């Protein structure tokens, strides 16, 4: 039992992350030794805590917008009356994701000005596609007899969606949200090129000023933030799929993933089998 608890990555990831966010100045001797030319050795702009809070807020708000757009469009595309919209919605979302976020930033700055707003726009567009695709796959994966039984028992279309379809599709939709959030944690850093306060500030500043240690400091915190968030999603996924594990079958412990792409593949497979 205790061995299993040590395999929960949150137990060591969370303290490690907290150390780098709060305790970066403590690493001053290490960076001073490794990069003697860089002065000061630790990024001296905003504190890493402040950078992280802004970064997280930007990702949270833009991911929430992606979620509303992606799930909303996914629901429309899978309704009987919405099938005609499916192709166009998917095409729009694909454009949103294939258009490079840097280009969105460049195009958005003249209209929206410098700061968080163009970054919010770029991240939101970038996050819609995985959520939309997984919402469609998840809803399409609800077994037809289950839907038919629900309809035959007199559940309204809204009740079927809320009580049956969305709960059954939730693990697949969650996998899409997970991909969107993880990608956006990494992508948000480029917002600092247009003046948004993010963990990209030391990275961009380091690149511009040839201060490699700042790049490393920013990258470590961004990467740990992404890994920690992914581990939280893994925990949420297990909670959502708990019903499948009851009885004889149990979830194998510690099966989390660093990047969300594995989750995406898994989602497609399970979504397509229904």
């Amino acid at each position: 039992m205790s061995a299993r608890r040590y395999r929960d990555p949150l137990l060591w990831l969370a303290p490690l992350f907290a150390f780098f966010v709060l305790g970066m100045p403590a690493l001053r001797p290490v960076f001073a030794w490794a990069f003697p030319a860089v002065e000061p050795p630790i990024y001296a702009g905003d504190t890493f805590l402040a950078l992280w809070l802004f970064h997280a807020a930007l990702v949270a708000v833009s991911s929430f917008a992606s979620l509303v757009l992606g799930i909303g469009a996914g629901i429309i595309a899978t309704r009987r009356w919405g099938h005609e919209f499916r192709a166009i919605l998917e095409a729009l979302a694909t454009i949103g994701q294939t258009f490079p976020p840097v280009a969105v930033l460049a195009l958005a700055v003249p209209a929206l000005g410098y700061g968080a707003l163009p970054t919010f726009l770029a991240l939101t567009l970038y996050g819609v596609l995985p959520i939309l695709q997984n919402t469609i796959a998840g809803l399409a994966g609800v077994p037809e007899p289950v839907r038919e039984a629900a309809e035959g028992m007199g559940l309204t279309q809204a009740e079927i969606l809320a009580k049956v379809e969305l709960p059954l599709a939730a693990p697949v939709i969650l996998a899409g949200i997970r991909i969107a959030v993880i990608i956006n944690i990494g992508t948000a850093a480029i917002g600092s090129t247009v003046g948004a306060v993010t963990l990209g500030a030391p990275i961009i500043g380091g690149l511009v000023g040839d201060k490699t240690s700042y790049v490393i400091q920013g990258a470590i915190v961004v990467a740990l933030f992404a890994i920690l968030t992914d581990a939280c999603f893994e925990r949420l996924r297990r909670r959502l799929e708990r019903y499948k594990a009851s009885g004889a079958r149990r979830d194998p412990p510690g099966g989390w993933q660093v990047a969300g792409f594995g989750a995406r593949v898994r989602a497609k497979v399970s979504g397509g089998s229904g």
Partner: protein
Amino acid sequence: MIELEGVSRSYGDRRVVEDLSFTVEDGAFCAIVGPSGSGKSTSLRMINRLIEPSAGTIRIAGEDIATLGLTRLRRRIGYVIQSGGLFPHWTVEDNIATVPRLLRWDEARVAERVRALLELVRLGHETRRKYPHELSGGQQQRVGVARALAADPEILLMDEPFGALDPLTRQALRAELARIQEDARKTILFVTHDIDEALLLADRIAILRDGRLLQYATPQEILTRPASAFVREFVGGAALGLKLLAQRRVRDHLHPGAAPAGEPVAQDAPMSEALSEMVLRGAELLPVRDAGGRIAGSVALADMLR
């Protein structure tokens, strides 16, 4: 009472059900039988309006169902489908409680209803906490039947409910359904492609082919006076006589009094079973036992022809 009057359904040029008219009395068990593609499932689904008829009228208790609200209509009708259609993310209890909760029963009443229904379909009370994937196919189908009966509907629609089960489980569930029908007296419409299932369970059989009703009658009548060569062939062909025998019970041919030695047949067994025993044993006379296991008398080979 369910009345179908001139009901048709077409998809484009393809007519799936054509001019279907028949009436199911309250408390009757009506089987809709036919080969694949005969329109039997479509006919059933028009009764809870999962499919809307292209023409014709369906009335329940005298009311045209097209004028009733969809939700209200469906909550009056229990619906069981082949693969159960249980909600995989809900426990057995939550599944059974679906309609009662939609009807906003209080939780004490819901719990009591779940308990009674699990007992009715002979599942242990501890089953209520399990999820569908933890049950066998037969158990899932029992839960499906319990769920359909939950809000005490007047009508039960069953679409090949035992079609996906192995023969032994199917046989057990048929017997359970017959018993439940004795107690609950619902108006049942039961779709099957298995004529033996229909002959065993139903007191009225509708035979469909290519969307048309060929015959609507009691099992006895269908066996003795099939409406066409197709019905005759479909119902049993050369084995028709044996199926007729299966409709009769030993008790109706019982000679009380002395009986020969040997393993007795049950008085509730069908005559076909007694005949089979006679052939196996080479005996013209068999002992018969009553429900309590006591010797009640005998049955003779000559009785097969009476």
